[in-house]
């Protein structure tokens, strides 16, 4: 944790109220996000128990599994989830704009521009907390290799028709969520924690109710008091007033309320199965329906607070203006969505269980680039983030006190003006260290020349430094710098030691040409995953949990 965030937390602790960690919003919040609050069954390692899902905060769709050990009920749940989620995704798939993408021509091997479609907006899924994202991934993994009766008439437990497709989409969203700065799938806690510092630890910040209480406490309470209540307060029946935001449930709820309800449901089901005549069966059916209704009411009761909390959090986040560079990142999310849409439409198989060597390396490179882009963009968009970089010596803000024209020593001298800057910051500058400023939204570079007043490496003293920079680019081709490209005396400018853009990594071989050091092409002796076909369904047994 940086010292500035530590300080913000300590201030929150002293004041009892969360404080800002950002002055702008660093993530896209869609106008119409899909909120998903999932629950799992205790002790069943990820078996779904229920969910609230939808885009209308006043009318969530309630999905439940009355008996999580029953495969048919789980399949019904997943089919309903597909019904709730897929139309939402589909609605974005056909609203497109023309765009260009550079591709490698398969015949000539040259880079060419291709006319492609780009979805003008992308669907966004918000879950309450980080374990919710893991659960989306788990659901995706469990569904995408399922076979429907249509695909495989012999499969012992055919999945409902659209379930494998939902699995592929959830997998895609789960993977995208690992890309720093992406906004397709977000956790409300992560969003709030990015923008506010509470007076509790980051572990406690994973509790959505407590976190919101710090940021926007109800009534007269301080954030600290409200958070403490959200964590521990129980009603007379021993139930948490603010239940956990899932997917795990509170043991007191499982044992005291849920388990008896499920038992009643099981009993009613057995009785119905054993019923003989019509009137008797009707009555037993009514009991079963009632038992199921009870479970639905119970689950709704523990999910609704999290549902409302997510929307409450989104309200707070929407009050922050969006950072200038968020749009750029969202465009990459749109590409990601469009790309997966295209793969599904092209009939490509589901994502493999594990990435091959080249795909893994590519993903890692993409994420490292995205992380560097995000770090730079947040600092450029937000003075409070920049303050952290200034404190760590990676940026400085200063006033221009003098500009002296100078030229490079080449046959055609180019402008290389010397800019003197006065700053109170302590950047880690060494000989010819490169620094950058944002000029019309794009970086202009300069190099450090010398300090005018302070000795080398003296880090202790307070007070100002006067330093000289040499501008090195973006001044046009003429002998005189283009208008506006050189700072004026009196300008106050932020300089960074980190680059604003990121070069992409090197080109990696095609997966079919993986080298011998990495096992060779897939399917050869040295490569992994040769035993089972990559897309084979999972083994199924009587007692699967998902």
């Amino acid at each position, binding site marked *: 944790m940086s010292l*500035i965030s*530590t300080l913000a937390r300590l201030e929150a602790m002293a004041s009892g109220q969360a404080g800002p960690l950002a002055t702008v919003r660093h993530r896209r919040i869609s106008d119409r996000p899909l909120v998903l609050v999932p629950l799992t069954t205790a002790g069943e390692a990820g078996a779904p128990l229920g969910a609230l899902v939808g885009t209308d905060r006043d009318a969530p769709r309630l999905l439940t599994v009355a008996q999580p050990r029953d495969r048919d009920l789980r399949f019904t749940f997943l089919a309903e989830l597909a019904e709730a989620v897929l139309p939402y995704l589909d609605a974005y798939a056909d609203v497109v704009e023309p765009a260009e993408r550079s591709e490698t021509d398969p015949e000539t091997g040259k880079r060419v521009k291709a006319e492609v479609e780009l979805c003008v907006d992308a669907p966004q899924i918000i879950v309450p907390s980080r374990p919710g994202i893991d659960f989306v991934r788990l659901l995706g993994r469990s569904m995408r290799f399922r076979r429907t009766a249509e695909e495989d008439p012999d499969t012992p437990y055919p999945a409902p028709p659209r379930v494998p497709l939902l699995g592929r989409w959830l997998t895609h969203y789960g993977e995208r969520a690992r890309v720093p700065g992406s906004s397709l799938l977000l956790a409300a806690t992560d969003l709030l924690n990015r923008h506010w510092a509470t007076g509790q630890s980051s572990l406690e910040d994973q509790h959505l109710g407590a976190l919101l209480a710090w940021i926007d406490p109800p009534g007269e309470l301080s954030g600290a008091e409200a958070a403490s209540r959200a964590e521990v307060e129980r009603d007379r029946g021993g139930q948490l007033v603010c239940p956990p935001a899932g997917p795990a449930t509170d043991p007191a709820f499982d044992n005291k309320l849920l388990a008896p309800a499920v038992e009643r449901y099981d009993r009613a089901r057995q009785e119905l199965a054993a019923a003989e005549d019509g009137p008797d069966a009707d009555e037993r059916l009514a009991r079963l329906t009632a038992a199921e209704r009870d479970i639905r009411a119970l689950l709704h009761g523990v999910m609704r607070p999290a549902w409302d909390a997510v929307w409450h959090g989104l309200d707070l986040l929407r009050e922050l203006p969006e950072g200038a560079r968020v749009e750029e990142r969202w465009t990459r999310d749109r590409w990601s969505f469009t790309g997966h849409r295209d793969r599904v439409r092209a009939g490509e198989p589901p994502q493999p269980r594990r990435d091959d060597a080249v795909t893994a390396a590519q993903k890692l490179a993409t994420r490292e680039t995205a992380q560097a882009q995000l770090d730079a963009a947040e600092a450029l968009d937000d003075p409070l983030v920049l303050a952290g970089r200034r404190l760590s010596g990676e940026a400085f803000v200063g006033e221009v006190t003098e500009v002296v024209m100078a030229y490079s020593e080449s046959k055609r001298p180019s402008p290389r003006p010397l800019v003197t800057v006065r700053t109170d910051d302590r950047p880690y500058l060494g000989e010819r260290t490169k620094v950058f400023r944002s000029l019309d939204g794009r970086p202009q570079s300069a190099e450090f020349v010398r300090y005018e007043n302070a000795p080398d490496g003296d880090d202790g003293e307070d007070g100002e430094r006067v330093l000289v920079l040499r501008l090195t680019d973006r001044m046009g081709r003429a002998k005189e710098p283009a208008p506006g490209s050189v700072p004026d005396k009196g300008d106050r400018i932020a300089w960074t030691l980190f680059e604003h853009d990121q070069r992409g990594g090197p080109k990696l071989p095609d997966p079919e040409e993986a080298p011998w050091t990495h096992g060779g092409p897939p399917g050869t002796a040295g490569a992994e995953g040769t035993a089972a076909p990559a897309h084979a369904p999972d083994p199924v047994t009587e007692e699967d949990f998902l």
Partner: protein
Amino acid sequence: MRGNAFEAKVKADGGTELLQLLAERLGGEAPPPAPGEVSVPDLSAAGPEGRTARTALALREATESGGWALLDHPLLALDVAGSPAYLEPDAVVVRPDGRWTVVEIKSFPMIDGSADAAKVGAAARQAAVYVLALERVAGRTPGAEVGDRVLLVCPKDFSNLPTASVVDIRKQLSVTRRQLTRLTRVEDIASALPEGTTFDVTRCSGAELTSAVEAVPAAYAPECLSACELSFHCRDRARESGAVEALGRSVRGELGALTTVTAVLSAAHGDTGDPGDPAVMALRRAAALRAEALAGSGAPPGAGALVGADAPAGAGAPERGVG
């Protein structure tokens, strides 16, 4: 629960499936035993001493016999901080070559060959303690050797079929060995308590218990919340005393000798603190930079920015003339 049912399934049929997995994953000379070739000794006895003695005897007999044996829930003893602790691994397998292998059966799944790393780590540390306890027995058993690789058995993917992975616990062993030598002896801890202190819930009232707990210093970190039932008590104490640790261990890193919220904030705001102390200097710079950023943005949460107002790539004006 599912966990117990899974363990029973893994050990069913005299452990045939379990030993199959073990032979497959750990290799070795011996082919996996045929069904019926595995001896499963009865380990029941009276009291913990009786059961540990029975376990030691069974281990010796199995090792001498040169065959396969599966010890289901053996009981082992280990000296911890000067008092004996009894340990019960899920299973120990004795191989014909005299090697003993600890088997841990867990209910979390292995999906596509990987599992929750925190849970595997906990299982590895647990297994290391079993191996250390087994080494005591092996030291007195000719021909015996305890393996430093243990077998972790979990449900495969989303099924209840068992799958297994070998976990190399040499690191956990070396760490646990040293930790055991460094533990303060239980008697020393007890003698530091006020005379007559007891935590025995059957013998004292709620009030007595509370005052006994309060007599003990609390060392709190937020990680305690997921591991200990007394964590809320310790958290309250940490918060009352204004300890910065209440925010997490990592916050202390840059605060130096400042240990309370009040001390940090008053140093940051320039009221107290040695201005020559780098921690104090850094705090003051942090506070000034934070205040400057928030003031420039028009108070929290606000719009506009020192440098942030410019839009990327072409849109918006260059940043200058900032206040």
